[in-house]
């Protein structure tokens, strides 16, 4: 057994997993605050990658401007989607809202294809590409920077959730909407802010994902892995998204390396089934019944 090789696979898995975790956090944020299962998260992520591409490649903006542009675009999409598609669905059955997000995903994928075409594209290089070694193990620089960026965002977000007033408002809304209203929290504003922040995070994650693997209109598939991540971690748990993301990243890396790429989904979904059999609410989820 070559330990160095194993370490490299593990590092690559952690790198990919950190991006799953980041997208998972975006998913969990929306679910926690509004109880909406947002299946369009993969497409919003894709949109972030494309907006970055448009800003950096077509308008020749430097990366440090293109990245905020992509994030702001994500935030705007979040605001518009919440206001026009999700809020009118308030009080409808969860399955209807769920279907709306599936439709939204298709619309976004179609729109991207109309604007930028169906071919996969490469994002302009914007991260330093000096090789990185951890001990003797080699790590692709993009993956390493992606990991660091994702972890920084997740930690900052977790701290904000725990230690700010807005974090308290979000947790209060998540726990008990009626009680949140009764203490003066503007619940519909919490809803809309959580969509805005989540979609901004997802768009940022899209830039990182696109920088590593390129962008294409089918990038929304990434959302499928994110769904596995959050179900494994527990739909409403930030910690679950983090642990689940890293776990699924590692599992995919090892199964891709040792069994071949075609087994990746087989293994991840097997992990999903096993976790659901042992812990139906995910590793860190709350014990609540949600029917879909």
């Amino acid at each position: 057994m070559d330990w160095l090789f194993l370490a490299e696979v593990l590092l690559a898995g952690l790198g990919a997993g950190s991006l799953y975790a980041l997208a998972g956090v975006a998913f969990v944020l929306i679910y926690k605050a509004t109880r909406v299962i947002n299946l369009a998260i993969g497409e919003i992520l894709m949109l972030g990658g494309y907006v970055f591409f448009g800003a950096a490649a077509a308008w020749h903006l430097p990366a440090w401007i293109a990245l905020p542009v992509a994030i702001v675009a994500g935030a705007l999409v979040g605001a518009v989607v919440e206001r026009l598609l999700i809020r009118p669905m308030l009080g409808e059955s969860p399955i209807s809202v769920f279907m709306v997000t599936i439709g939204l995903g298709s619309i976004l994928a179609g729109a991207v294809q109309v604007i930028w075409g169906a071919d996969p594209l490469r994002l302009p290089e914007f991260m330093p590409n000096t090789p990185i070694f951890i001990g003797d193990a080699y790590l692709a620089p993009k993956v390493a920077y992606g990991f660091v960026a994702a972890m920084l965002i997740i930690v900052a977000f977790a701290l904000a959730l725990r230690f700010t007033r807005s974090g308290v408002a979000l947790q209060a809304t998540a726990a008990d909407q009626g009680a949140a209203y009764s203490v003066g929290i503007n619940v519909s504003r919490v809803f809309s802010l959580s969509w805005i922040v989540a979609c901004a995070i997802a768009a940022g994650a899209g830039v990182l994902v696109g920088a590593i693997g390129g962008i294409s209109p089918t990038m929304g598939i990434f959302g499928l892995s994110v769904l596995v991540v959050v179900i494994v971690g527990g739909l409403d748990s930030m910690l679950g998204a983090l642990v689940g993301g890293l776990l699924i990243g590692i599992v995919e890396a090892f199964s891709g390396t040792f069994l071949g790429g075609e087994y990746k989904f087989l293994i991840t979904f097997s992990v999903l089934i096993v976790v659901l059999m042992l812990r139906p609410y995910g590793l860190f989820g709350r014990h609540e019944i949600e029917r879909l």
Partner: protein
Amino acid sequence: MAAQNLLEIDNVEVVYSRTIQVLRGLSLVVPKGRIVALLGSNGAGKSTLLKAASNLLAIEDGAVTSGTIRFQGQDIAPLAPHMLVRQGLFHVMEGRRIFEDLTVEENLIASTFALAGRGLPAPSFDLVYAYFPALHERRRGLAGYLSGGEQQMLAIGRALIAQPSLILLDEPSLGLAPKLVEEIFTIIARINAEQGVSMLLVEQNAAVALAVAHEGYIMETGKLVIEGPVEKLVRDQDVREFYLGLGGAGGAKSYRDVKHYKRRKRWLS
């Protein structure tokens, strides 16, 4: 009129899910600075009335179908629930409804959202801890681990932080030991006297409610049946018998006589 009455409920009807009528033409006023007790049996519609007054009905698919509710002379119908709180009407809901995953202190922080846009100074939690020293000891602990009595104290503490002019209190005695009930009601009376907060108090425990209230209403199946100052209510034969459990002579009544209940309860339609 409007200057004296903080809350005016006028001929209100409430329907749930567009089909189930719960309140049938109910009117009630809460004068400034007073504690008004609203008594009645299970399912009479007491909690519904409070939710109608705090605009929290919509969350449970209920709606006021006729009549008006005015707070400080202003119709509350167009106000979102959080805006009503920010104008000084605080609803302490039935079952306490504290945020169990948050600490005691964070529960109080959540309540500071009620102060948004009112130009009030940042609140000190010391006021809450002065009334409820037990909460101070446990301020960093999760609210879910508090005892039932402490959770009720926290629920009332959250109301204090919001600096309301009117508190709607829904069954603060629910599930508490008699000694704790007494303690909490003593503090409720003190808050009313010291902070000048008016209260609309819903209770099943009539004796303790009438002990702190200035005025009382008694409702059954969606309608008011008796109303008046507390002194008058406690002299009323029916109230004594059916709500305070006292016989005609003032002594405790034997269960043997309860058979006459239905026949004697003359206000029942």
